[in-house]
């Protein structure tokens, strides 16, 4: 492995054009990831036709690098402005933005930079060490029932985040799940809740919903505060977390690497589920669950470590089996095809040099997140100096463009503003915005896999639960759920007794 890695590094840095492409990918991914609504996917779609003119290794490497740095880039706007650059950065906003409001933006961004680099680098190393066996294990053992169970577990764990009470947290998740059912059902293709509107048959897209619930509702809240003279601009803070501060979260980092990597190797799942699961696990294992959603550094660390840990892992099914893990890896299939190649087992035999250039580039891209990220952070934090009356219209404009650009539908811009208004009202009532977003994103994945899983076991729940991994995850989810309800009831009883 080391010999191959050195050969890949030598090929990567031995050619000035390849170096330029690498640097372009690193910076381009970070920039597009950081601009709200315009994601690394936008950059990938723009670059796709040009990749035909590159050498095969250069073309595939460019997209792999964009994937690594773009996944990190969205964390910055999530932390500073409550605008996740992509769905996989949504959990980062849960605690990152409250930290900004508390004047701890520097610590949150610094932690995101470092943990994205650690998660991505660890994932790249694991990818290099065991691509083929891991891909084969995942494909044999993880099917739709297991993915549904994973989603159920994730919902059970993370549902308590952000709501005033567990009941409001769950009501928020259920609202998100309801929104996720709008559009064609994922198995039979039957239209639901579209009220005859064709555009709604395509469902509610993640990006407008996220931008609305997070960014637009935040602007409304800040505008209200400003109107009533209660607005306080976030304090500018460029203090990065110290080594000792971060060392306290070493277990959270390791756990998120494992969770993110596991989610990443599942075909069609990718970094979004990884980020939510990483965050959810941090909540589950924490002794201070109530601190999450209110500016807990561990929330940022867990989410950002997990989503970047999924990047290397997502390359495993792509390269070993030809199965893309998400939208960007699906575009990479087209890059291979531009060069008369197909990702899959034969690539390892026919083009090992290409594979190792890509592996090496992903490793160095993750390392460069640390250096470039730390340099750019001090500059980016200055954005917080922009007065609200300039910042708010800019954010609304960018969010509107970001909502529209994905599918080119005006409906998505309307959804964004509606989500903003609903989010504004619900946040005042103590409901959980993260819970709603969690429900929307995981609801779609969960429903599809539940329906497929039920078809596979012929609608026999016993057979469903006879799959060991599935049963284990559902049991763990049920216990988590039960424990949460018990605690909430016990807390209510204690409160009632104290009142008497």
């Amino acid at each position, binding site marked *: 492995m080391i010999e191959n890695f050195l050969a890949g590094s030598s090929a990567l840095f031995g050619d000035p054009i390849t170096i330029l492409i690498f640097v372009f990918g690193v910076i381009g991914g970070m920039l597009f990831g950081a601009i709200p609504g315009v994601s690394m996917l936008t950059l990938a779609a723009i670059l796709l*036709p040009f990749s035909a003119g590159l050498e095969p290794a250069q073309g595939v490497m460019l997209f792999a690098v964009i994937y690594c740095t773009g996944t990190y880039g969205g964390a910055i706007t999530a932390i500073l402005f409550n605008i996740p650059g992509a769905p996989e950065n949504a959990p980062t906003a849960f605690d990152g933005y409250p930290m900004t409001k508390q004047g701890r933006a520097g610590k949150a961004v610094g932690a995101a930079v470092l943990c994205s680099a650690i998660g991505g680098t660890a994932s790249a190393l694991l990818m290099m060490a065991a691509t083929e066996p891991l891909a084969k294990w995942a494909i*044999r053992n993880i099917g*739709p029932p297991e993915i549904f169970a994973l989603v159920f577990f994730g919902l059970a764990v993370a549902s308590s985040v952000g709501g005033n009470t567990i009941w409001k947290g769950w009501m928020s998740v259920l609202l998100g799940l309801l929104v996720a059912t709008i559009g064609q059902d994922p198995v039979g293709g039957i239209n639901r809740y579209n009220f005859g509107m064709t555009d709604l048959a395509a469902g509610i897209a993640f990006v407008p919903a996220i931008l609305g619930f997070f960014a637009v509702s935040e602007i409304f809240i800040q505008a209200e505060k400003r109107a009533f003279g209660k607005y306080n601009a976030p304090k500018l803070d460029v203090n990065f977390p110290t080594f000792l501060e971060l060392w306290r979260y070493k277990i959270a980092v390791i756990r998120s690497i494992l969770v993110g990597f596991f989610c990443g190797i599942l075909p069609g799942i990718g970094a979004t589920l990884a980020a939510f699961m990483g965050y959810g696990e941090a909540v589950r294992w924490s002794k201070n669950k109530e601190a999450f959603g209110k500016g807990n550094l561990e929330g940022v660390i867990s989410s950002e470590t997990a989503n970047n840990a999924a990047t290397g892992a997502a390359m495993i099914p792509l390269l070993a089996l030809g*199965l893309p893990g998400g939208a960007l890896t699906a575009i990479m299939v*087209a890059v291979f095809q531009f060069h008369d190649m197909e*990702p899959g087992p034969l690539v390892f035999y026919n083009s090992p040099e290409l594979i190792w250039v890509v592996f090496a580039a992903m490793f160095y891209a993750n390392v460069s997140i640390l250096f470039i990220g730390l340099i750019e952070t001090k500059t980016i934090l200055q954005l917080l100096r922009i007065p609200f009356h300039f910042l708010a219209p800019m954010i609304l404009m960018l969010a509107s463009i970001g909502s529209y650009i994905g599918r080119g539908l005006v409906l998505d811009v309307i959804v964004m503003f509606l989500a903003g208004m609903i989010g504004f009202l619900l946040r005042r009532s103590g409901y959980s915005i993260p819970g709603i977003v969690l429900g929307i994103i995981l609801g779609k994945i969960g429903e599809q896999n539940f329906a497929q899983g039920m*078809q*596979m076991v012929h609608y026999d729940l016993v057979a469903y639960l006879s799959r060991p991994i599935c049963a284990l995850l559902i049991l763990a989810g049920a216990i988590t759920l039960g424990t949460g309800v018990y605690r909430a009831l016990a807390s209510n009883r204690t409160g009632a007794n104290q009142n008497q």
Partner: protein
Amino acid sequence: MKLVKTIATGVLLAGMSTASFAGGHGFKCKVSEDSMAKPGGFPDRALTMIVPYGPAGGSGQVASAMAKAVTELTSVDINRDHKPGGSGTVGMTAYMASPADGYNVLEHIDDASSAHALDSSKPNPGKDLIPLVISQVTFSQIYIRSNETRYNDWKSFVAWVKKQGGKATIANVSKEGSMERVSMKFITDATGMKIQQISFDKGAPRYGALMGGQVDALFEQPGDVKKFLDSGDFKPILTIFNERPKAFADVPTHVEMGMKFTPLLRFRGFYVNAKAPADRVKWLQWAFQRGYCQDSYQKFNDSKFMSVIDSYRDTDGAKTLINGAIKQYREVYKSMGMAVK
């Protein structure tokens, strides 16, 4: 069974009996003119191509390849506007709302025909639109893992499925009224086997399900699983086509296995609004039909197994193909008890 026989004798898809097995090497362009004067200067700016599916899937790739070929030929740029969702209905609605001035073209697949067959208020791709060219026509096959030990050919597969009492599974895109679902109805009616269809709307989880043993078989078109055929992971055990294509000479067809239905084909093509000015339509027909002949497009089709059978239909050929498909789908839907509007 009765219905299947009726359809088999009554409806013939255009080109099925005359499909030429051109292959990449024997390709001959059917458009003789290398250039055509622009009518009234049209087009004097870039065209917009609405694609009702994502950029990475089969439609996205064929749209990209055709746009490249037409641009090479005419120096006219084509901007692709992807509007995925609703099984292609979102993109179709957006297209019908766009100006019918010839600057907007549409990529679509046979789903447009089946959607109209089920609900005649939806645009008829053979009447409301003018097909510029159908550039990919392909057939379906049933695949199993190459290292499968429980069965190794179609006959042993059918025998094994029958022993499972309805518990065997096949992965496909079995949405209500889809080509896959209708084709599977033909097959199960003809063989008397019961098999559970598992619907995966994305390719990767679908192929992963077969590779990992989550399902017992896969219904797919050869171009989509070419890499798994090349790598030896999958093997076809049944070709759903009237004749054996040369590339699959050792795989029996459904006809040889005693199933007498007319196979439904998957086809992808390019359209313009029927209300667009006639001279512009004529130029677009030339550009897209001649674009099909470009080396870059032919190379693309070869790489996708799309030259295994004749993938080309000009406007008239496309209309015949579409009308035949609509008629066939409508009859099947009625027989399935679906509400045909």
